[in-house]
């Protein structure tokens, strides 16, 4: 990806890049050929645990498996996105996977895999109610990706009482 096109992208504005130190993300995009990188997978696993707390299975093993399944579905979801959306997502995720980006955009001091659900939830609320549009946009994107990917799988439906489509 070209530096110039990166800087033009919409989701994460120049302001956030400045906040977070643009150079770092140029070296580490969040997607590699449309696939989640290893840090991106860890990011979404952490976000999944926090956003879906109360919905995920309670047993540690079932819970880990459910989160893992969601990460796989996010990987598929990312591949289905058109190039300009992939580029934005790659930039957002890349930023969040750097320490300055995590701090600047999400306001989270601890790295994603080590942060508690409560810490991640507080960071999410910081973005959600921020006066900076770019932080709100980032929150809404993460909320949509996590919720959408999680509930696209049939095994998650029973917890919300959805029986699945009528057999025909």
């Amino acid at each position: 990806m070209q530096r110039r096109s990166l800087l033009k992208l919409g989701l994460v504005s120049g302001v956030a890049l400045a906040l977070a130190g643009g150079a770092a993300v140029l070296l580490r995009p969040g997607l590699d050929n449309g696939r989640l990188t290893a840090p991106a997978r860890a990011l979404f696993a952490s976000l999944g645990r926090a956003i879906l707390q109360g919905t995920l299975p309670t047993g540690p093993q079932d819970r880990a498996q459910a989160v893992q399944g969601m990460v796989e579905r996010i990987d598929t979801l990312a591949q289905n996105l058109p190039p300009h959306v992939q580029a934005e997502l790659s930039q957002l995720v890349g930023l969040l996977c750097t320490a300055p980006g995590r701090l600047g955009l999400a306001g989270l001091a601890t790295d994603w895999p080590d942060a508690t659900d409560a810490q991640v939830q507080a960071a999410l609320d910081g973005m959600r109610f921020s006066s900076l549009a770019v932080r709100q946009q980032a929150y809404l994107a993460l909320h949509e990706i996590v919720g959408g990917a999680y509930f696209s799988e049939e095994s998650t439906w029973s917890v919300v009482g959805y029986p699945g489509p009528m057999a025909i």
Partner: protein
Amino acid sequence: MSNFPDPIRDGLQRGWKVLGGAHGALPEKITCDVAIVGSGAGAGITAELLSRAGLNVVIVEEGPLKSSSDFRQRESEAYPALYQESGSRKTTDKAISILQGRCVGGSTTVNWTSSFRTPVPTLQHWQQHFGLDDFSRAALDPYFEQAERRLNVTPWLVPPNENNDLLRRGADKLGIPSAAIARNVKGCWSLGSCGMGCPTNAKQSMLVTTIPEALDKGATLLVETRAEQLVMSGGKAQALRCVAVQPNGAVQGGAHTTVVARHFVLAGGAINSPAVLLRSKAPDPHGRLGTRTFLHPVVMSAAVLEQKVEGWSGAPQTIYTDHFLETQPIDGPIGFKLEAPPLHPVILATTLPGHGQTHADLLAKFPRTHVLLALLRDGFHAQSQGGRVQLRGDGSAALDYPLTDFVMDGARRALLAMAELQFASGAQEVLPVHEMARPYTSWAQARAAIEQLPMKPLLTKVVSAHVMGGCGLAGTEALGVVRPDGVHWQVDNVSVHDGSIFPTSVGANPQLSIYGIVNRLAQGLAQRLTGAPAQMLA
């Protein structure tokens, strides 16, 4: 796989000319009478009429050809395969999510079947402000009638599902008139899965009606093929340059094809059609191209009832009320139409605000959740100029739609109206879909809270499924992009035949407005191209 006959697979077996994707390599060049960009509402009607008139037609569709055998009623499959940008298309500032089809049949393959003729006040506004003298209801009614007959648009006589009946009962309680919505279905199973492609072929979308008719008459369909630009010279379009795309829309060294035609019809929907003209650098002396794009911005209110609602089941959107459109002037504060959408897990989980236990608590009540939506009627007031389609650096289309205070004032009134109606229908709690709202347990509490909510973009959830405008019809050159006959004001062998020609929003779900108005435009075009009286729809 469903056990239903699949008219598309049957047609392919009969030898329909379909190329692109797995159907066969694109030829370097195709010559025809008329090239049509898109295969949705406007494209389908045009393709059928021109093919019946004996014209040689090529249809160019960016999305895939999917049919009833593929439609398994799963959001996980439907959004990536059938929708623009996997169902995640957004305005430039990400404040509005847009559901728009991207497959053969366009949005008609995935819409919820709601069918309304263009409302009289809307047409009167077009006559008065855009010089469209011949757009009276009396003049258009025969064309609506033909389209309704062709697509089996009929009153829906089956009792509404609970999600819709709650709208009816709440309106009754408040003394507000409501009515049933006509639907374009034949033998509908009431599965509630219209948005994921109809697995029984009951929905009379373009996919199972006009496109098959055109293909039976010899039309060629190019799928997974994007119309990039018209090649302009001598004040005319000479050819249409197209490129093969991957399922996600990426080009990645895809094959190119050039379609040479006498006439070109753009019908790729009201974001993509203006974008084709922008990429083509079509003349735009009055700066109208891509402007005045309207969305019917939608806000929503989620209620929890004591009883089961099961909003996933039964025909979606069968009851509506226009009370909040009809009780105020069309060019005053923005009015809204109320309807009840279908509910499925992905759309619900991504729509309901919040995270963690709060979100989990909302989702746990899914079977008892009832949702109303308000379609805001944009484009009738000086402070409602809609959005603007522009091109990104890679040539893809982006829609900038500022959610102004004028629009958001309507959004607040809509949240109030929906909450009041939902409490009247027996709701235990009502959640206006807004990041700073919570479930309220009485109308008084909800009213007080909604009056204080900051009605700001990115805090208020706003979505859209109706994209209109950007290539507006007008009776004078300075006011629009296309003439009243649908032909481009400056390029006389290019027409626009889709929702992008509407000078304002419609003020109702737009599919029948597109069918009816394009029916007239396409009959006129067929007559001009053949010199013979036009055939009617089958």
